[in-house]
């Protein structure tokens, strides 16, 4: 996991309350719209996102910076790598 002091979130997406594949599709949309190097945080209450989003990052070649469990939701942070 990256040092959380070493990045600034460019955009935060609140996908809490949406179900699989909602948070991941919102992230894919945001990454597509972002510039290379931008950091996107997704807030999710969907347990599938904890698994799906890191796998998507590995597959799509973007950098997973953090998966934080914050009580009633998760915060997943991704840097657009290309």
């Amino acid at each position, binding site marked *: 996991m990256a040092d959380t002091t070493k990045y600034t979130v460019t955009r935060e997406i609140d996908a809490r309350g949406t179900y699989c594949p909602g948070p991941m*599709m919102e992230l*894919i*949309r945001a990454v597509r719209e972002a510039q290379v190097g931008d950091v996107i945080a997704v807030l999710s209450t969907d347990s599938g996102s904890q698994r*799906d989003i890191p796998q998507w990052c590995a*597959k*799509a070649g973007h950098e997973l910076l953090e998966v934080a469990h914050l009580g009633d939701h998760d915060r997943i942070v991704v840097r657009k790598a290309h």
Partner: protein
Amino acid sequence: MSAEGLQHPMADKHHLSIIAFSGTVDRLYPVGILTSGGVANDMRVDVFFTFWALLAARRDPGPFRDRVSLDYGSDSDDFRRHYANLPSWRALLSQAKELGDVHVHACAMTMDLFHLSLDDLDPMFEGVVGAGEFLDRAQDGQILVF
């Protein structure tokens, strides 16, 4: 009949083909969700709507709107209560098409049988193809049927 959009997929990309046959939302939701999963995996996804699924995918689906399979009996109300929290299956499929390499086709035979034109269908459809042609193009990947 036009087969526009039904080209041989790129060899470097995994290919998923989905045949949507059933016209009930309990089977149309997986079509939308698995297509989204395909997009997340950078796959090309071709979806072939035939028979009841195609009737349910009309701009005006008539009695096929939100129909749940009788297989579920009294549980169908329970299913409705749960999917009320989700975007519609059409919204899922449209979003997947917008974000990925997704192509939605209408079955030529069903179109003829029910005297349908592309204008009768949801705007996500890009063309009409025959079953044989669809299967020919699907040979390089997996095929799911709903």
